[in-house]
Structures are given as C-alpha cells and as structure tokens.
C-alpha cells in the first residue's frame, strides 16, 4: 500500500490531503522563508491518529513535520524533504479545568487566547501571551517555548506546562512531567518544550493557570530618544520592580501604529515604554508611582496612566497590532528576534538604527524591552532591485551585534530554519554536538522536522563554513507575512 492509502486506511480520507492546491496551503509558516511542499497533509483529531501518522511515516520511511496554526516566524513548520505534515488545528478542545489546583488539560490545537477566554469567568488566565495569541495554538507555543509581553514576570511557556502526552518519533506514546511536581528523573518535559517539533508531537497538555490580578495599572511613558527609553527600562528594574510587562516602541513604529489604532500615542516621541504592573491595590499603586518617577528621571517627557479598562485595551491593541500597521509603510518586512542583556539595551538599540541607516533601510522597533528581547523589523519593497541583499546583510549585522553584546540568537521565535545556520555564532562545535546527541536520543533517524534547529553536520568542521553564507535557507518570498 502506498503512503497516502495507508494513511487513509485509519484516518477519515477527507482529512488526508494530497491535492497540490491543498498541499500548497501548508507549505509555509508566517515567516518570509521559502515554502516547501509536503507529500501529504493529515488533519488529525486524536492522539491515536497522531500515532497512526507517525507509525505510517516510519513504515514508509518518510519524515514528519508537525504544524499548529502556522503562525511561526522562524520557518519551523516549513515542510522540508516532502514530509507527512501532521496538523493539530482540529484538536482544539479544552478537555478539563481543575479550579482547585488552577490547571487545565487541553489539546494541542487549542488557541492560546481561547484558553484564557474559557477560564476568564473563574478569575484565571493562561499567562504566556504571544502577540499572535488570537491565532497561535498551545501546541505551537510548546514547540517554540513561546513568550509574550506578560512573560517578563510570569515566565515563558515552560514555566506554565506541567505535563505533556507525547507521541515520540518512534511512534510510542509517553507522558512527560505530571500533576505531581518534578516526577523522579530527568526533566524530559523541559527538554521537549522548545524543541520545535524535532522530538515528537504533543497530543495532550496540562497547563498551569494564573489568578487574574484584581488591580492593573498600565502606563505609557514618552521619551525623546530610544537611548533615554532604554535607560528608563534599566531604571525601572534598578528600582526593584519587575513589572508584569515592559514594552518599547520607537518613533517609526509609533507613527505607523497610531495611524492604524488611534490610541493617542505621542507621535512626536522618539520612543515610548508601555509598562504594566498588576496585583493588589497598595503594590500596584506604589510601583506605578515608582515607575513614573524612574521614567521621568530617565528623561521621559510625559507618563500617561490608562484611566479605564477600555483605555488599557486600546494601548495593548496598539502594541499587539504593530505588525499589521506596517503595511502602510512598505509591502514586505523581515522581523528579527534576538536577546541582549537589559543593561546593553541602549547601546544595542543605537547600533540597530545605525545598521539600518548604513544599509539604507527603514527599521521599526517594537519589542519586549524588560526582557532585553529585541524585534527589529526591517521594512522594504521587494520590487526594489538589490534590496533583498541589503535586508539580509543588515539582519546578519544585527544578529552579530546582539551576540557581541553577550546576547542570544532568539528570545521567543525559535531557531527553525531562519537561524539554523547562525547557531555556530552562539555555540561551539562541541556544544552543537551535545545538542545533536540530545536530539538523537529522541529521534535517532532524524525523522521529526528534519533539517531544523541544528546546522547540518553540527559538531563537524563543515559548520564553520556554513556561517559565511548569508541566510542560505531564508529567502524572502513574494508574499507578505501576516501575524
């Protein structure tokens, strides 16, 4: 029996897609990375169906790529080597809520924001909140160990996942973690989270829910320059405050967003900080006063406090719709994700602007400043001759700048294909070899999401040669990306 017939033997044939147009729908993620074609696409509805897909792929010696909502920004779910693509979007049920222990049991395709909406009436929410939370899935969040503005204080996905039922690359199923804390042995749960689909497929997930704070104060501080706003970030942290969120937008971004969101952003500012504290009354009142003082001392020209939940929602809408707003400027963009130590923020931000200027590009910055997690957004018109090369060169220079400041390649988008060949800039050959062996422990045949995360041949001499090429795997597509 051929692969597709074999898959259809156990799956409803209408959920095994093989027509070229159907396959095209699953050829890319939300990044600008070159699409690839899956051999076949399976829309699974249960752990048993996932297991069937994996076992069938093994029998036919085919690779497997798992896909959630396809909102990834690093090419993680781009189907390389004609794989069986396992799509989890139909597994979108909230299976149970344990109010006493503040946990929820979910399927991997459940959308991030839907989970929080479902538990809001209980005074609970799911803390990790990527900007794509209206459309990204919990399973995808696990694959990338996703972050979001409110992960500054609450922690990223890994801190909020207690247990995962996984279908391993061998086709076996296994529960990682559990409702009891730290089951005996290695934290395989923690290793699986952020493994970008290379260590198996999550079929059921138990997450921790957080109590929603009774008081929230959201402030918008305007600064004349990015440097002063960056110093504001350090001043807030140095004042002993870890806000629930601490975001920055630069002048280009403010102007683009304000046209779109009409949130009353100061369009004459060099940068704004969006700062939020939550908790009980005295703490939020005291800390918001300290934040205002720290911002003013760092050079803020105004600090606006949201006076109502509606005003707060509008400010967050402005922040989270930033990427949509840039279509007003240019049709294409390249979004970066890197992390630097918080104290290096001011220097690195100036460096990012300098790099963009040197390459004659427009850069917008909207990012998780409190985490030092940069998202420089290079906007351009692909039709302009020679511009792609400049975008790639600028992107590479930004990555190198962040690493030179002691930072990391990715804070929340993952490595995927986009940064795979940059891993050697952050890790030694021995470190890459260690990671490759860790992957081999899960997937000795490299069946799950091949050619992602680790450079090909990691641990060997060929790695260093790969560094000299500019984004060999990340070519810009004709279409724009939606986030």
């Amino acid at each position, binding site marked *: 029996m051929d692969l597709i017939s074999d898959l259809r033997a156990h799956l409803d044939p209408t959920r095994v897609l093989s027509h070229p147009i159907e396959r095209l729908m699953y050829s890319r993620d939300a990044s600008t990375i070159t699409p690839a074609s899956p051999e076949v696409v399976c829309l699974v509805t249960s752990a048993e169906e996932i297991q069937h897909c994996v076992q069938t792929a093994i029998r036919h010696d085919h690779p497997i790529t798992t896909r959630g909502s396809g909102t990834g920004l690093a090419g993680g779910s781009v189907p390389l080597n004609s794989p069986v693509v396992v799509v989890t979007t139909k597994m979108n049920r909230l299976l149970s809520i344990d109010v006493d222990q503040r946990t929820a049991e979910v399927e991997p395709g459940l959308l991030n924001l839907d989970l929080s909406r479902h538990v809001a009436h209980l005074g609970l929410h799911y803390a990790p909140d990527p900007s794509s939370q209206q459309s990204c899935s919990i399973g995808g969040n696990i694959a990338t160990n996703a972050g979001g503005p409110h992960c500054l204080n609450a922690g990223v996905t890994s801190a909020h996942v207690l247990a995962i039922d996984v279908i391993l690359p061998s086709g076996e199923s296994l529960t990682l973690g559990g409702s009891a804390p730290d089951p005996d042995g290695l934290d395989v749960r923690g290793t699986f989270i952020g493994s970008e689909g290379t260590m198996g497929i999550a079929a059921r997930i138990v997450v921790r829910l957080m109590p929603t704070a009774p008081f929230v104060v959201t402030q918008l501080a305007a600064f004349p320059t990015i440097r002063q706003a960056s110093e504001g970030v350090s001043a807030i942290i140095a004042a002993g405050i870890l806000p629930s969120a601490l975001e920055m937008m630069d002048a280009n971004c403010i102007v683009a967003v304000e046209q779109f969101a009409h949130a009353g952003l100061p369009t004459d500012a060099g940068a704004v900080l969006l700062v939020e504290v939550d908790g009980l009354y005295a703490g939020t009142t005291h800390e918001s006063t300290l934040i205002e003082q720290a911002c003013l001392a760092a050079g803020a020209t105004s600090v606006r406090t949201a006076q109502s939940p509606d005003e707060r929602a509008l400010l967050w809408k402005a922040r989270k719709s930033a990427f949509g707003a840039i279509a007003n400027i240019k049709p294409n963009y390249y979004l970066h994700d890197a*992390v630097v130590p918080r104290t290096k923020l001011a220097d690195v931000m100036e460096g990012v602007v300098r790099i963009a200027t040197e390459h004659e590009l427009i850069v917008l910055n909207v990012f998780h400043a409190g985490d030092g997690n940069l998202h420089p957004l290079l906007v351009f018109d692909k039709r302009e001759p020679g511009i792609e090369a400049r975008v790639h060169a600028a992107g590479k220079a930004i990555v190198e700048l962040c690493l030179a400041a002691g930072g990391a390649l990715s804070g929340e988008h993952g490595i995927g294909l986009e940064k795979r060949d940059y891993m050697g800039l952050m890790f030694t050959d021995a470190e890459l070899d260690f990671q490759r062996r860790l992957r081999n422990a899960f997937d000795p045949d490299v069946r799950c999401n091949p050619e992602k995360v680790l450079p090909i041949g990691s641990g060997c001499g060929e790695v260093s040669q790969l560094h000299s090429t500019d984004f060999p795997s990340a070519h810009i597509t004709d279409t724009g990306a939606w986030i």
Partner: protein
Amino acid sequence: MVTLQRLKPSSALRAFVDEVGDPSTGAVTVLGAGNHWQYGGELDRDVRVIRAPSGVVQFEPSEMIVRCGAGTSYQELNNVLASANQCCPLDPVSPDSTIGGLLAAGMSGHRRLRFGAARDLLLEAQFVDANGHLLRAGAPVVKNVSGYDVCRLLVGSFGTLGPIGEVVLRCRPAPELSRWCVIEHHDPVAIRARLFQPSCVLWDGARVWILLEGYQADIEHEINTLRALGAVDSSSGPSLPTRGRLAVDPNEFADLAPEWTKRGKWIAEVGVGTVHTDWQTPRRTAATPLERSIKHQLDPTRRFSPGRLEL
C-alpha cells in the same frame, strides 16, 4: 565573520574542568554541602568526588541576574543579592546548601507556588561534557530559545549528564515585607483560593501556614480576607522536615494525609504537591528507556555520577 563571544573562564572554572578530566580519568561526581544525597539514588562505588568553584563572579542589580560558582553556598549568594534588595527564591532548608547542589537535585524552594520551580531560575550553566570539554548551556539573558533547553535538562539530573561549574541565575526583587500566619483546622485549598498570590501555603493535616509577601497594606488586606474564615494567628512559619520528600498530585493530599500521619511528621506544599517528611521516602527503581537513551548519548561511558537516578 564574527567569532564566538564568551567570557573567558575564570581560573577556578578552568581548574574545575581539569579536575573533571577526560574519559581516561574515570567516573566523577560533584559534592556540594551534601544536604540532599538521600535523594536521587545510590552512587556507584569508586567514583571520584570533586567540588565546584565557589563565589559570586558577577552581580549587576539592574540586570537582575547573578553569575556564581556552582559551589557557592545559598547563604553567600543571598547575602550578595540582599545588598541590592534582591533574592533568588531557591530557599533551601539548610542555607549552607550549594547552588550547584540545589540545581542538580532539582530542589525548589518553599515559595515555588508564587515564584516558580528551581528549573525556571537557571539561565546559563557552564558544565563539562563526557569528553572533558567546557560547554555552555543557555546564555546570560532572561529569555532565550536558541537551540535545545539544556539548562532545564541539567536541573534535577543529579550530575548524571555533566558536572556544573558555574551558573547564571534569574533574581527577583526581594519583597518589602514577609509575614507568616497560621489557621487551625481549615481546608487549605479554600484558603489558597481566597488569596491572590500567597508565596506559600503549607498544611500538616491540622494547621495551615500561609506566607504573605509584598507591601504592608496588601498583606493586611489579605490577612483580613483570611479572618473571614477563622482565627488567624501570626507565626514564624513551620520548620520543614528534611528526611524525605514526596511528589504528589495536590488533589490527592486529602486522601493520602491519614496514611502520612501514621508514618510521622509531614508538611505539604499546597498547590504544588511537594510533601516534606520526617521519614525516608522511597527511591525510584528504574529509569525510562528515553532517559537511558539521553544518558547513553550524552555520557556513553557512564562517567558522571553513575548510579544516580538509576542511570
């Protein structure tokens, strides 16, 4: 082309790597303060015992992270952090416990309910691989998804995958005020549900201890909330039994409590599931095939803490 950006390892860290040695030097394990050797299983015989470097290497308060030798005691680290009103909520029962020991044994502190597990505090680890190379896991930044999460794999691995020499930890602002209080004979789950964010709720079957932290007016507000449930007394907090630890689904506390009470003294972390006991708790009997596969890939000659975790 850019070269790798790394801090030069300190001479103490280099000496540690030399001491771990290459595969020809045989099996080796790292001893901290020795406070948690009742957990994680029996070490094989004839294993060389070494110690990790000690001392705070770098602390930048406005970065809210700290770099220290794995052999640094919690007390020493905490003293440095307290000078800038910060803390690292590992909260060991014995302050002489080393940071490396706490991480290797995966010992989360009693404030885990609010501040998270030990595994969420480790940002970077400098450790030695089976070939004797110094490797870095993670990076000195608070958010990082570059490659596999080797830091979380090392926490709780009891030294079986590679000896940790130096670490970078996430810190937090120290709360302005900490106050324990106690309520007798009340449902601990209902108490937790009444409060916004207690740092810790402990239960011994009869009493419920609550640790409230933050600003004075908020703490008083929370205590007033508790008063609606019954008499609330101030407390210095219980002393946790240290002979054993159980990991239990917190929903099973009520069913299991009578059996624990027959065994001896116990205190359970409500909403977390860790139970501190004054009796020795059973060790695991076998590792899973996946764990054995990880061990085989990363330490094929079983030279790191052989026997621990049944690996």
